[in-house]
């Protein structure tokens, strides 16, 4: 009997579980007999060899072997020892600028480790599988590390990586698949962290390729870190783990920040000016035979360096003269002509695509919108908001008068309505009141838009003059805080208190140096104050990440870590330029000194509306006032 026919017959007559089982065994017996017959007559068509990959089970407790780089991974690296790291100029100068006292700053005290460093860290790890309860297909592999409670999730279900404007985290977003002997993992969306604990940076642009190979109780982890911001070439590291038979029951790594240095000025970020890191001399004194190459670099990791002439390390302690470097970071803003929606938290959304991030809060009342983009895609923005709420836009808040914040004002306002003023005495005086959304901002935004002859319907009408404007809308307390003389003289930070989302406008971006518009009241110290104002309102969820979310004017959805790194950058560049100004340096001399050299590959621009030189000049001019 044909198996299919037999199967059909059996299925048709099966009435209960026991009968099915009985008949199945009968069928198996029939097939078995046939198979035996076939098996006696070679050649036999054995099942084709499946070129499938092994499913590698990482489950269990793992302890890292510290037979490589044990000092660096254990007690910690020496200052100015960057050996074995293929750093580029920016990475090296960032590290040389790093003062360990930076970790005493409140917002750095609980910084976690980024994934590649976590995998090198001391402490035990635990791995387990997550399987679909119905299909038992592997959904994810989890890897939890004792140090800093670093928890990785490696998605095994084929899901796609998030868009570039999605948040970053210490562990990033990882997907895996089994390839040959290995679990192969790809990771994106990492936060900025470090390659080593002496300040050698790993940027938020880093991506990982990893391979986990297990042989019994021995696991070898290989990671390839590609970081064009701080590396000349990918960094490859391999780490061995030994499987432990028991749970050591010690998995927590508590951290709470607090005051470690009292009365420190809020704009004090410990750093060394170029050429002034005391760790360099200490290292060379301690390791006279390994001086050449201790500041890292791509060439130093190859055999030719070992046999070549000694390198002049001192020449590497300052920026190279004449170099002009632009950002190599991925632009997180889509350029496909569409408006993309990312849920931030609860009823708050981020709209990306129209040349500047837009935030929309929805609820029982009309949408509350923060900023309106350039307006080139205003119709699509309105359509996207309409998909989030059936009500017309009720409020628009502008964080600044700049065109990327207000460009869509006219269309978005016109599409909306503010029912809160209809039927009031106000509407009796102004018949048009409530027709169209109400636009809020600091008064200086309205002043500058009026001075620029903006369309009257695009200009904010609900303005404030001091400290803050507050309202309760869609079930949340919303506050606009004035950030005087930051990017301009009319910047606002918008805080959705219940959702705990801060909209930073152009005070904070992840894409460029701050656009300090000196002509319109911007100053570097005001910018630093504004960034610190954001940090005064944020609370991280765990190990320095999560919690309060911050929507930048441009770039990816962030939390306080991105803001604090940005704040540090502005302060450090300010300190360098201020030191030069105090020596009487001219603007050209300041530019030639390249005070942004360690940040150029991340934020720099040689062309466009806001170049590195414009930023340096803005800082210089406000410090000269």
């Amino acid at each position, binding site marked *: 009997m044909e198996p299919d026919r037999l199967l059909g017959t059996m299925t048709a007559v099966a009435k209960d579980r026991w009968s099915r089982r009985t008949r199945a065994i009968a069928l198996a017996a029939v097939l078995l007999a046939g198979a035996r017959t076939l*098996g006696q007559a070679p050649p036999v068509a054995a099942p084709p060899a499946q070129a499938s990959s092994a499913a590698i089970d990482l489950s269990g407790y793992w302890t890292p072997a510290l037979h490589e780089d044990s000092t660096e991974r254990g007690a910690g690296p020496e200052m100015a020892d960057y050996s074995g790291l293929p750093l580029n100029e920016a990475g090296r100068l960032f590290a040389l600028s790093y003062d360990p006292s930076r970790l005493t700053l409140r917002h750095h005290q609980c910084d976690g480790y980024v994934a590649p460093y976590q995998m090198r860290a001391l402490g035990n790890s635990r791995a387990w599988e997550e399987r679909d309860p119905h299909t038992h297909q592997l959904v994810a592999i989890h890897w939890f590390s004792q140090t800093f409670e670093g928890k990785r999730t490696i998605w095994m279900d084929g899901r796609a990586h998030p868009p570039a404007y999605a948040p970053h985290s210490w562990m990033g977003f990882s997907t895996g698949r089994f390839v040959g*002997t290995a679990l192969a993992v790809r990771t994106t969306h990492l936060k900025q962290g470090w390659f080593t604990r002496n300040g050698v940076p790993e940027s938020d642009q880093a991506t990982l390729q990893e391979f986990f190979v297990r042989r019994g109780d021995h696991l070898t982890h290989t990671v390839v870190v590609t970081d064009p911001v701080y590396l000349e070439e990918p960094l490859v590291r391999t780490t061995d783990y030994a499987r432990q038979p028991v749970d050591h029951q010690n998995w927590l790594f508590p951290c709470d920040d607090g005051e470690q240095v009292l009365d420190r000025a809020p704009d004090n970020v410990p750093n060394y000016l170029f050429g002034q890191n005391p760790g360099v001399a200490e290292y060379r004194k301690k390791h006279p035979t390994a001086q050449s190459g201790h500041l890292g670099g791509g060439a130093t990791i190859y055999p030719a360096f070992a*046999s070549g002439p000694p390198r002049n390390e001192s020449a590497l302690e300052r920026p190279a003269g004449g170099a002009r470097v632009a950002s190599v970071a991925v632009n997180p803003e889509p350029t496909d002509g569409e408006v993309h929606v990312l849920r931030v938290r609860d009823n708050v959304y981020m709209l990306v695509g129209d040349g500047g991030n837009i935030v929309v809060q929805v609820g029982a009342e009309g949408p509350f919108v923060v900023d309106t983009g350039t307006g080139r895609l205003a119709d699509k923005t309105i359509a996207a908001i309409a998909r989030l709420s059936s009500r017309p836009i009720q409020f628009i808040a502008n964080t600044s008068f700049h065109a990327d914040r207000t460009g869509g004002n006219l269309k978005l306002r016109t599409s909306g309505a503010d029912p809160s003023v209809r039927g009031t005495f106000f509407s009796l005086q102004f018949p048009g009141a409530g027709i169209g959304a109400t636009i809020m901002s600091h008064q200086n935004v309205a002043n500058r838009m009026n001075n620029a002859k903006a369309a009257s319907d695009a200009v904010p009408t609900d303005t404030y003059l001091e400290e803050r404007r507050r309202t309760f809308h869609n079930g949340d307390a919303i506050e606009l805080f004035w950030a005087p003389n930051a990017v301009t003289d009319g910047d606002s930070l918008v805080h959705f208190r219940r959702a705990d989302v801060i909209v930073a406008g152009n005070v904070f971006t992840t894409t460029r140096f701050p656009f300090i518009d000196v002509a319109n009241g911007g100053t570097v110290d005001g910018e630093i104050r504004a960034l610190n104002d954001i940090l005064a309102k944020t609370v991280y969820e765990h190990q320095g990440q999560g919690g309060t979310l911050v929507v930048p004017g441009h770039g990816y959805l962030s939390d306080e870590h991105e803001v604090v790194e940005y704040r540090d950058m502005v302060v450090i560049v300010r300190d360098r330029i201020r030191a030069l100004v105090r020596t009487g340096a001219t603007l050209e001399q300041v530019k030639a000194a390249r005070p942004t050299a360690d940040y150029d590959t991340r934020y720099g621009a040689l062309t466009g509306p806001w170049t590195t030189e414009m930023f340096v000049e803005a800082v210089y001019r406000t410090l000269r006032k």
Partner: protein
Amino acid sequence: MRALLTGLVLASSIAIVDAQRGAPPAPPQAPRNAAPIDLTGYWIPLITEDWRYRVVTPPAGDYTSVPMNPAARKIAASWDPARDEAAGEQCRGYGVGGVMRLPGRLRITWQDDRTLKIETEAGSQVRTLAFGGSTVAPTADGDWQGVSRASWDRPEGPMGSGAIFGGGGFGAGRASGGSLKVVTTGMKPGYLRKNGVPYSASAVITEYFDRFDLDGGDVLMVVATETVDPTYLSQPYWTSTHFKRQANATGWNPTACSAR
């Protein structure tokens, strides 16, 4: 239906076993033809770990990371490169226990169908990795590279490697890919590091060679090494060393051993 499928699996598995019993054994493939991964070519080390101990000869007394026992420390404390040179043993740091960590390229070729050969730039050493059945005799007192026995280490398939009732689960066949496993013994005593960190003639060194093809076209080879030496080590010494494949022989420049 579920029971039916179980029956089908049982039946086909038994059929496989019977088929294998009934067929004459196929001649084993030569290791070269059976290689699950291609390790041949030129490989350059990426010295991103233990840099200070690998790129330069570390100073005497700097043994960081190596789990030495007191006997090893005593030996290392008496390290004298001049003495090694005078004894004609300037290659002590280039033996199988140390040569893979030194700053130099590797050239890997098939010497014959059953023997892989690793030539090192550092110290111009030659390692021969003999697969089962191959005969590579050690020198009378063993040489720096000892006797290396090689095998392909293949991962088990998704359902295990063994046939039914064979103890390995229901699956048949192996997964794709694999590693090269090398176990080396019988070497002359040498140095794990050039500054005199010793290993003994009784050490057993087990290595696994893996190959990873990266996005963008680069190829990595990772050599995970376990050195077991109760004479001088308080625990197995684990390192993993990585190399990037080179397209050709550019830069290949074997050098002589140096005790310093």
